[in-house]
């Protein structure tokens, strides 16, 4: 085992980490906003709104991410004249933006389903209680329904974030030099595929491990009501009451 080579490879691959994180963070955050909007739109139950969203979700959940990236990057290139007249060619010419668009649309489709599940799991009594307190619809959403729904959706959303981090590796195929792209470059120079891919895998593993723990911490912080209260706080509350 050539330790020097491994260290060298790792340090080279590290240069791809910012791009990987940028792709993942941008698409996850914009995907989340889109997903939240679509999930809330589904709550209206109007067929003219619900069916297009269902179609979009089914299309993006039912096809491979690789195909989606290809369709947007190579496929839309076929309509270059149209895009140029629309002034959109600058966006679709750049592999980075095409990758972001594909990843965002993909994660938003899954996210819509996750958040919809979260919204459905809000106990009806809580909504009734909010109405009984005289909260308006939007206030009830802001103070009661959304916090509970998002808390419910968090574990599944953690999974989705990990899938997105893994998904960014596919953007190497449309020429982006993130971790996998750099790994392929190193391999074409050194022909040592196993070591290089193992290093790349280790980096992804470390990133995902970090995400799993961050989500677990967030989950812990957001669910004090599910934990047994520790004695000191219980005594303090008790003391405050008397």
């Amino acid at each position, binding site marked *: 085992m050539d330790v020097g080579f491994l260290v060298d490879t790792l340090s080279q691959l590290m240069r791809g980490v910012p791009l990987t994180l940028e792709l993942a963070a941008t698409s996850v955050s914009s995907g989340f906003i889109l997903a939240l909007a679509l999930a809330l739109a589904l709550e209206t139950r109007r067929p003219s709104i619900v069916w297009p969203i269902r179609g979009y979700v089914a*299309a993006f959940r*039912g*096809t*491979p*991410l*690789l*195909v989606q990236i*290809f*369709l947007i990057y*190579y*496929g*839309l*290139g*076929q*309509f270059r004249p149209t895009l140029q007249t629309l002034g959109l060619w600058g966006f679709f010419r750049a592999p980075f933006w095409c990758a972001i668009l594909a990843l965002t649309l993909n994660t938003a489709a899954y996210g819509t389903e996750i958040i919809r599940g979260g919204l459905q799991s809000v106990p009806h009594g809580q909504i009734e209680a909010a109405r009984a307190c005289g909260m308006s619809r939007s206030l009830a959403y802001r103070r009661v329904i959304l916090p509970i729904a998002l808390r419910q959706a968090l574990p599944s959303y953690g999974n989705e974030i*990990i899938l997105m981090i*893994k*998904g*960014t*590796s*596919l953007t*190497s*195929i449309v020429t982006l030099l993130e971790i*996998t792209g750099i*790994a392929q470059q190193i*391999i074409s120079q050194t022909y040592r*595929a*196993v070591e290089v*891919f*193992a290093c*790349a*895998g280790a980096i*992804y*593993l470390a990133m*995902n*491990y970090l995400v799993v723990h961050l989500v677990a911490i967030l989950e812990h912080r957001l669910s004090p009501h599910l934990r047994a209260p520790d004695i000191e706080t219980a005594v303090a509350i008790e003391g405050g009451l008397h």
Partner: protein
Amino acid sequence: MFDLVGFGANGWGPALLRAALMTLCLSAAGFLSGVALGVLAAFARLSGDRFARGAAFAYSALFRGVPDLLTIYLLYFGGSVALTTIGGWFGARGFIGLPGFATGAVALGVISGTYQAEVYRGAFLAIHRGELEAARAYGMSGLIMLRRIVAPQTLRYAIPGLGNVWQLVLKDSALVSVIGLVELMRQAQIGAGSTREPFIFFCAAEDERASQQGTRTST
């Protein structure tokens, strides 16, 4: 536009259809090898042996944390390097590549095995403890209990989860095109490259894959 993906003189229909069949075969082979790995890993996770539990946990943590594309590359290049080395001992020269189909099937098996393990484990835990007790009270041996009580019920509970895994495998099989196997995705790329109409070909690929998923849900 429809001549292009149709069955006419210069239509790519037959090629795409053959490739769709390849996608289906590859996914089925990958799914089945995933069954073997998944059952084994679930068994290890549930067993009392600490070493087996640790190994199964490491397996699932490793392959769920690493991108699927990397797993496929790693198995293909790793296997090919090993094969080339072995070939070198016997005097073969140059790079010996692994067959794309077998590598793809094994890679999809390794990836889907981690998900299937979770599905089987959950399904096993869903069986009522009382049923196992009853079986034992009847004096069934472990093997008979597995065959008559555990396996049928685990499978029943596992079906919805396995449906999800099948979709996952079907979509992951597109990644196998990167190691040169001509399945649906690769054929679409070839078609797109030689006709310069990528949009139509990738849409066709998406369409055929959707119909394959449709057959699964309707059965």
